[in-house]
């Protein structure tokens, strides 16, 4: 299976980078650890512990959600910008397996490594603070993963723009802002947002965390909406990216002319 080799090679590449730039990696790990710890210790400080716990759970899960979403969203576009400045972009386009699969493999490798680190750190900080949150990992993780599939689609759209424009940092910043805003608007206030990526997932997480929803409390409609949204965004994203690739190839934009 060539695609498996692709994932292996690209995960290994991400792992080597993490290892080789250990100071960067360590400072990232330290930052996330401190943030988790701060949030967990916050439970003890602010008001009524019974109430606070549900809230803090929500905040932490939302934070993880936001963090992984952001990484997923920007990773592919960032890879393209990086590869273009290094001069390796065209070499990647020479693969008979197709560039979008390489980009996807890179992302999968990166997310696998980061996912493990983030989840590991969460448990480590819970142990440190001796504050054990009841996270329902099976349900939250499932919702998270399905939501991220849709985000991958949006990431591909950004990647498409990156292939053509190369510099899209300013745009990314605006996007982060929009994303943060979306995370705070409950779906009940603006139902139309169900068509936006990511919002349905966050909304379901909110129900799990605050109202204590379990697998069976969600309707089939909820799951369907979540899955359809993600799949549609994934396909539109890849399609859009491939269109941009064509444009870049006819304008000669892949090389560093």
């Amino acid at each position: 299976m060539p695609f498996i080799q692709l994932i292996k090679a690209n995960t290994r590449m991400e792992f080597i980078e993490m290892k080789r730039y250990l100071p960067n990696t360590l400072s990232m790990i330290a930052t996330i650890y401190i943030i988790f710890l701060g949030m967990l210790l916050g439970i003890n400080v602010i008001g009524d512990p019974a109430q606070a716990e549900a809230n803090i759970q929500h905040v932490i899960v939302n934070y993880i959600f936001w963090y992984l979403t952001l990484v997923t969203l920007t990773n592919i576009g960032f890879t393209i910008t990086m590869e273009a400045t290094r001069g390796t972009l065209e070499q990647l386009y020479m693969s008979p397996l197709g560039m979008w699969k390489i980009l996807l493999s890179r992302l999968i490798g990166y997310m696998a490594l980061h996912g493990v680190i983030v989840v590991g750190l969460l448990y480590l900080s819970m142990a440190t603070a001796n504050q054990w949150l009841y996270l329902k990992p099976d349900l939250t993780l499932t919702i998270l993963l399905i939501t991220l599939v849709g985000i991958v689609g949006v990431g591909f759209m950004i990647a498409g723009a990156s292939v053509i424009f190369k510099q899209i940092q300013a745009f990314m910043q605006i996007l982060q802002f929009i994303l943060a805003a979306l995370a705070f608007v409950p779906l009940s206030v603006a139902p139309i947002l169900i068509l936006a990526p990511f919002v349905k997932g966050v909304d379901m997480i909110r129900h799990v965390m605050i109202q204590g929803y379990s697998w069976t409390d969600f309707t089939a409609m909820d799951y369907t909406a979540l899955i359809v949204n993600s799949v549609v965004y994934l396909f539109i994203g890849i399609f859009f990216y491939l269109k941009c690739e064509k444009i870049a190839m006819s304008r000669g934009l892949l090389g560093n002319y």
Partner: protein
Amino acid sequence: MEEILIEVKGLKKGYKKRKTKEWVQAVNDVNFTVKRGEILGLLGPNGAGKTTTIKMICGLIVPDEGEVVINGITMQKNRLKGLEHISAVLEGNRNLYWRLTARENLEYFAGNRGNSRKEKASEIEELLHEFKLKQKENELVSNLSRGMQQKLALAVALLADSDVILLDEPTLGLDIETGYEVRQLLKKISEAGKTIIISTHDMPVVQDLCERTVIINDGKVIADEKVEELMNLFETSAYVLTLGNELTEQQQKELDVKFPMNELLDGMKLTITLEQDNDIYDLMDLLKKENTIIEKIDRTTINFEEVFMNLIQEEKNHAIHSIN
């Protein structure tokens, strides 16, 4: 036996310059074919359209018109299938990950074509030895010399096991010694039966390696010939005249107009290339007018660089004539 592996048909490509917005016709109806096992030199002055042509062959640039067929596969229709037969080094040492080691680069790019490390282990080992990179295999690419980086880029392309290898200026920026080493490696690769297209400014590369050369100028093919034949063609029309006295200024002016491809050494040794054999009489007349003494006439030995310069010069003259 004479199987045609690459067909380049009527390629055209224009760009709109980003700053000035003017239109540049980079490639203007380029046609040629390459047989299996052949090494083709793609030559031309700066901006002639070599890189654009190469990138259209590997599908990185979509042509405005025309198509490239490799092993029966049309690149413009089925690019990924076609890429199974092609690998390329397009920007020499920039085509590598400088933050990975030599070995990691080989392994990564093999993975990107769907090969496992295990599958490629022995081949990687061989390449590291053959390219004299074994001792540096665990060195970061950023710490390697330019020559080693260039060799590594070549090794990466070779590891793809493709029929066709496209090389854009593979000896650019190398010192004489490493340039020589890379040429020897390329020779070996070609003997292994690979089909290679090399775009280059480096005449020794052409003279040493290429059986045939396609010369492009202003996006058009101006010569498509065996290197040997081109050399013969020009050899017979190039002379060295040893003069007994110096030319007058008037003579020199006339000479430059009638025979733009002339070179005067020490005022007495005149090297001249004639476009037609009959031109030799005109030259004699020009010299006789001022009673210039001719002590000796020799045929020159010409190198490929001169052949190339002459071709480009001729092309320019034609362009001027056709305007007038």
